[in-house]
């Protein structure tokens, strides 16, 4: 990175913003629509996260490059077209790499187009910043999003199927909580994570991470 010394920490901040301070899933609660549905297992969640991250990074880079050329009246339409193009690329790429994964994610890959995070970041960040900064921010956001989805998908897979990445965790006697892999489970798990973060924020000493589970018991 051959940038002025002063810019380096700010780039680091840009990078970390999406992972922690402005995490798209847990802090901004954006872009859940096409993603809650596919987080029934950790593998699906990570694939979806990576696909979204790819679209996010490439479209933020391109939008940042053309930000001074596009008139502001048609900017949203331009962003959407750019995003749709990259989503088409991802759609065909996943189809070529793994047909099984393509079938599992189904139409939800194409629904990445309307993922609020991508348009949100394009409008709020990429349209105002130079390519380098926009890309780094988008990479951070993409990683943060993937982590968020993994947190959802792993919890749902652990409780709903007793597995993680397809590997059985509790042995054959485990009675899966079917509700976790059904639609209500998606809402409960995300709600539970938000609750955990609220709770952590509301008290000063760091708390043990057992809240999530007891929360799950209370509702399921």
């Amino acid at each position, binding site marked *: 990175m051959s940038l002025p010394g002063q810019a380096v920490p700010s780039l680091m901040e840009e990078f970390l913003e999406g992972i922690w301070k402005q995490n798209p899933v847990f802090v901004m*609660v*954006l872009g*859940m*629509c*096409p*993603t*809650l*549905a596919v987080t029934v297992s950790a593998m699906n969640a990570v694939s979806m996260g990576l696909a979204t991250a790819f679209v996010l990074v490439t479209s933020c880079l391109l939008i940042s490059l053309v930000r001074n050329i596009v008139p502001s009246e048609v900017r*949203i*339409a331009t962003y*959407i*077209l750019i995003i*749709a*193009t990259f*989503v*088409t690329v991802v*759609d*065909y790429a996943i189809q070529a790499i793994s047909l099984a994964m393509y079938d599992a994610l*189904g*139409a939800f890959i*194409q*629904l990445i*187009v*309307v*993922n*609020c995070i991508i*348009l949100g970041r394009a409008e709020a960040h990429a349209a105002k910043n130079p390519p380098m900064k926009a890309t780094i921010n988008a990479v951070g956001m993409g990683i943060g999003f993937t982590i968020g989805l993994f947190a959802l998908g792993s919890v749902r897979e652990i409780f709903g199927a007793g597995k993680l990445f397809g590997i059985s965790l509790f042995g054959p006697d485990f009675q899966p909580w079917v*509700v976790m892999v*059904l*639609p*209500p*489970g*998606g*809402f*409960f798990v*995300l*709600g*539970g994570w*938000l*609750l955990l973060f*609220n*709770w952590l924020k*509301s008290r000063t000493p760091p708390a043990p991470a057992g809240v999530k589970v007891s929360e799950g018991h209370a*509702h399921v």
Partner: protein
Amino acid sequence: MSESLSSIFIGTLLANNFVLAMFLGLCPFLGVSSRLNTAVPMGAATTFVMVVASLCAYGLNWLVGQFHMEFLRLISYIVIIASAVQLVEMFLKKNSPALFRALGIYLPLITTNCAVLGVALFQTAREYSFLQALTFATAGGAGFTLALVLMAGVRERLNFSTVPQVVQGTALSLMLAGLLSLIFMGFAGLGASAE
């Protein structure tokens, strides 16, 4: 392909409700559902856009098929939806400025409402005929409105109750959505099966 219209309608309205079973259109569901009097018009506007988008998507799908340019399908869908939203926006701005202001940012955001694009994509994936697609879009919109109204009703009541501070905000909305979704699971098996 051979699903009857009534089974598509009931199935999409209740058993596979767009919001509560398929997670489509969550952003407006959580954003606009705090008051009943904005929930209904928002649902109506979204339903209208859905039906228009569904009709156009049906035509477009045929068109890109004719020219063997399926890779353009997604891009053309999104352009059609954006135009339909623009139409609704202009109509509302002229005929009901108060409502236009109440809906605020969520009106242009219908463009990025997954439910609308979802209608177009699912009807293509399931190879619905023209009438089936029309029924699917209407039922999807009605289901979206239903979920929005139910949620708004619950949240209006919630304003009068004391809630622990930790739970307030999105976490509570999500828990409520989860409970509603659990209730809608009771409809499972009605009408057309998912996928």
